[in-house]
Structures are given as C-alpha cells and as structure tokens.
C-alpha cells in the first residue's frame, strides 16, 4: 500500500483539499500548502491550470484562468514543489487534464512526479479504457493513478475500475461539474455505500461538497471528502480562517460506520 492510501486510511473522515496551483502566483503555493497542512488536511490536490477544463465549474475555471495569466505551466509546478523549503508531510496529488500530460510526455511526467515526491495523479478526462496512456509510466515511477467513479458508472464498469483502484477511489457525488451544491440527490449515500462495500481502496466523495454539514450527512457512507471550489474561492478572497474552520469541522466529525 502506498503512502497516499496509508495516510487516508489513518484519518477518518479524510479531508483532501484541492487548490489551483499558480492561482495567486506560484510563490504563494508553498504558503498555501502549509496553511492546509496546519489546518489538518489529509492530502492536497494540486490542480494544474488548463485552457479547456470541461469537468470544472465556474470557481475552478476562473482560478485556472488566473493561473494561466500568471503563465503557470505543469513544468513550473513541478519545479515549485521540488523547491519547497519545508517539505510537506501530507501527500500531494496532481490533478491535471490529459493534454498537458501528453505534451509533457507520459514517461517524463511520471519521472517528474517521482522527483517532486508526488503521491498520486488524477486525470478527469482520461477514461478507464485509455489509462494505458499514462498508468504504466506512473506505476513504473511508483505513483498511483486515482480512478473516478460516478453516479452514471455502470455496474460492470464499476467492478473493472475498482479492481484497479489505487490510492483512493474518487467518487463523484453529482451529475455535473465541480462547485458547491446546496443538496445532493437521495441516491448519493446509497451510491457511496455501494462503492465502499466493493472497494479495497478508501472511497472519498468529491464534487459539490462545501460544508461540514454536507460532509456529516454523507460521512457514514464513505471514508472522507474532497473539497475544491470552496477552498479555491476562500484562498482567492483571503478567507483562510474559513478554510481552517471547514477542515476542522469535517475531520472532527465523529462517524458511526454501522
């Protein structure tokens, strides 16, 4: 079992925070990672800005535009992480669309992940059928490729995906793009519980989660949460206290896993 999975299994519920690398300038990346680490997150996703982020809602789209205006590239993010003065203890996961990885080259990308100590990779537009474009190189470098499953994933597909799951399973809780939602459809808890019953890797719920109350409702059915837009927006607006409160509210939940 890798470092990422180990850390996630150690904290229940786990809290994975997403930030857009380069939003606010790459110079602020280390500081933001530290804020999150001190707030008590389990792991951090570093989003790589992309010109055409079809899985993302307005908050992360806008953050990506700001990062691209700063000229931030995948290469720059690797360099920034390698150059951190204080190496974070929490695992760092790269979330990137496929095209920047293909242009970087899958082998070079995996090698850069290894050099920068990246603990996992998520590629939202790389379907299970095509993971051989990236996964063999990542496996060679010892970096897990995190799989996504959704409310529309068919049963047969789900089994195939879960059989190869590593790090954690990213369970998408909405039919839609990233960004906070007021409520979830009734079948979400059942969906999470079903995946959890089948998966050896921990199951984290992501997309649409922005408050401890929402997390509390789903906590019995999963192993933790991924929060993106709420964190991205709070950093953008300088509301770091809100981030601390949100993380503490979620990781402090007492969960009865029946």
């Amino acid at each position: 079992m890798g470092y990422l999975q180990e850390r996630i299994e150690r904290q229940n519920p786990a809290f994975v925070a997403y930030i857009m690398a380069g939003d606010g300038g790459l110079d602020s990346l280390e500081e933001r990672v530290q804020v999150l680490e001190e707030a008590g997150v389990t792991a951090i996703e570093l989003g790589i800005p992309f010109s055409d982020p079809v899985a993302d809602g307005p908050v992360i789209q806008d953050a990506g535009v700001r990062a691209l205006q700063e000229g931030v590239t995948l290469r720059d993010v690797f360099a920034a992480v390698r150059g951190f003065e204080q190496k974070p203890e929490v695992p760092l996961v790269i979330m990137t669309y496929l095209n920047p990885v293909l242009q970087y080259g899958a082998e070079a990308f995996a090698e850069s992940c290894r050099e920068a100590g990246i603990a996992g990779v998520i590629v939202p537009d790389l379907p299970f059928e095509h993971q051989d474009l990236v996964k063999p190189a990542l496996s060679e470098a010892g970096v897990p490729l995190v799989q996504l499953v959704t409310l529309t994933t068919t049963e047969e597909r789900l089994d195939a995906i879960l059989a190869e799951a590593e790090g954690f399973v990213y369970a998408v809780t909405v039919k839609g793009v990233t960004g906070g939602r007021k409520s979830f459809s009734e079948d979400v808890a059942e969906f999470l519980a079903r995946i959890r019953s089948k998966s050896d890797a921990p199951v984290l719920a992501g997309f649409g989660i922005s408050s401890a109350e929402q997390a509390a409702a789903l906590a019995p059915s999963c192993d933790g949460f991924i929060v993106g837009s709420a964190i991205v927006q709070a950093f953008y607006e300088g509301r770091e206290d809100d981030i601390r409160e949100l993380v503490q509210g979620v990781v402090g939940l007492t969960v009865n896993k029946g």
Partner: protein
Amino acid sequence: MTTASNKTGFFGRYGGQFVPETLMKAVKELEAAYAEAKADPEFQEELETYLKEYVGREQPLTFAKRLTEEFGGPDIYLKREDLNHTGAHKINNALGQVLLAKRMGKEKIVAETGAGQHGVATATVCALFGLECIVYMGEEDIRRQQLNVFRMELLGAEVRGVKAGSATLKDAVNEALRHWVANVEDTHYLIGSALGPHPFPEMVRDFQRVIGDETKRQAEAKTGRLPDAVIACVGGGSNAIGMFYPFVEDEGVELIGVEAAGSGIDSGKHAATLTGGKLGVLHGAFMKVLQTDDGQIQEAHSISAGLDYPGIGPEHAYLHEIGRVKYTAVTDDEALDAVKKLSRLEGIIPALESAHAIAEAEKQAKKMDKGSVLVVCLSGRGDKDMETIRSHVEVE
C-alpha cells in the same frame, strides 16, 4: 507522443472517447443506439423522407459558367448546400441526430454554435419535433451573428452566451459538454461538426455524406465521369468529410480541404490546424490542435465564425496523415475577394466559410486543364454574414 491502444472510434491515431466518467455511459449508449439506427431501414427511410420533404434535397450541382470563364481552367460545378432549408449543410446532421435522439427517448437537446448556422439548424429541427433546445454560443460570436441569435430565439430555442476563453466556438463546446454532464439522463448533445468523442465524428460524417453521394451521382450524370478534384472548406470539418467520404476510394479524384488562414499563417492569427497544429486531445478526441508546447489550447482566428476552431475532426487529421486529402489554407482577404467574385459572376452570395473553398478553387484552377472537372462544396449562403461582409467589402 503516446498513442492509444484501445482502438474504439479511432481513425489511425485520431479519435477515441476522452470524456469525464459521468459521460462515458452516455457516449456508449449513443454508440449502441446509433449502430442500431444505422442498420435499421426504417430509420434511414424516415431520414430520407425529411431530407426530401423538409430540407428540400436533393440539391443541384450547378455548372458555374461565368466563374469557369473567369478562372480559365476546369469546368467548375457548385454543390448547392446553400439551398438547404436554413441556408447551410448543417441541417443534414441536425436532422439525423434529432431523429436519433427521439428514438433514444431524449426530450431535450443541447448544442453549441459558432457562426450560428448549426444553432439555427438545431433550433429548427427541435421546433419541428417539439423538443426543448438550449444553444451555447460564444459572446464574441453572438456579437458577430446577431441575426442568427434572433433566428434561434424566434424558433423557440434558448441561446446562452459563453464568456470564457476566446468566447468563440471552442468555448461554446466546453460549455455544452458541461451542460451535458449535468443533464445527461434526458438530454442529447447535438454536436455540430465531425468532432468530439466517438461516435460523433463517424455519425456526423454519415449524416453529411448525402452531400458527396449526391455529388457523385450528379457529376456522373452531367459529365459522364467523376470529377478531377473536389474542394471543401474545413473548420471542424463536417461539410468537407460529408463531401469527401464517398470519394475516398476513388483515387483519381483529388480531394482538397481548405482551412482558414485568418490574417495569414505567419501572423499567428489563424485557424489552420493541420498547418500549425500538433497531436493532442480536445473535446473528447485525439486530433490536430493549435496549442502551446505546454498543451494549452490556443485561440483560433478567422473572419468566418464557422471556421474559428483550434482543432480539426479526427478523420480529417487521419486523411491528412495518410495523404489522401490535401489541406491548404486561405486568408480572410482572399475569402472576402471570393465572396465578391461569386456574387458578381454567378449571383450567389456564399457564406464566408464557403468563400474559402471558392478562393482555393481559383488557385487550383490555374493548375488544372481546360475541360477537367472541379467541384466546389458551397456549404452555405452568405445572408448571415452580411454585416461582416459589409464592414470589409467596398461596393463601387
């Protein structure tokens, strides 16, 4: 560059299904539903009936006598997609897909549009069948194509402006994809070009091949043989693939696709993907894409909103790679000049997109013998472009 080993929906290295997991079920359902419909004579018959009774097919292959004299080379024939209901080839595909969506029990349609022709075609067929219709359109294109926005609204569609990125076609596709992700159960994404995840490129080609099938029959009837060359403009590439596909096996027929060179290839402001693009993944498929070394998709530039797209359909990328189709590029100025020529010589005002093909025809004509046959796909009429043309062309 790595290439995919799972070959579902690929043309050589190009194509595939690269969409967020939420859409995988939908693209696979669409793949199965389309395969079934394609093989069903009743579906084909229904499509044919509507193409005839509603779109007004078949369209003539018009001999352009004065243009032929002016260019001084081959006999030039125009395939008249401009005579279709709604004014362009786009309706062939919109009709096919909406019949398929109905068959699949989808009640809502989402689409993207660049020039607005596909949006109008989609709004039209949605009105015809009583389906709810939402069209995403870049704010920049809304500005350029006011009249088409009004047309869509008059037809009962909701037009939603997209501000992101370059606020053109590429960004409208992103937003339509996001909308589809969020409404996948009851909505069909009616994509307008031979782009996107499999089965879209193949399906759109099949719905547009009526252009090439008719042309082939008509050319044989009128000239007793196949044309020597066939020219069509290429943005995403739907009119071109529809025109070319039936000729691909006929090696004696030279096929020429014309991209938009905008202000000139060297200016960097163009949409000539096969000249300036690299292999990459955009909007669900491997294709040739205008992009930076870091894999960020670049903005395309063309006076014609319908060619203003930084990618090219996967089958075109493949036909280019194997050398079966030759791709050239024509600038904004050359296209505007062609608008004027065709208007004055033939009494046909072409769409700015189609004017690129006319401009290329003049260049090709210089290399071709008298008596040879050159077919140009006149993909649409210029009514929608009047404002743009008026601001660039002086009439003495």
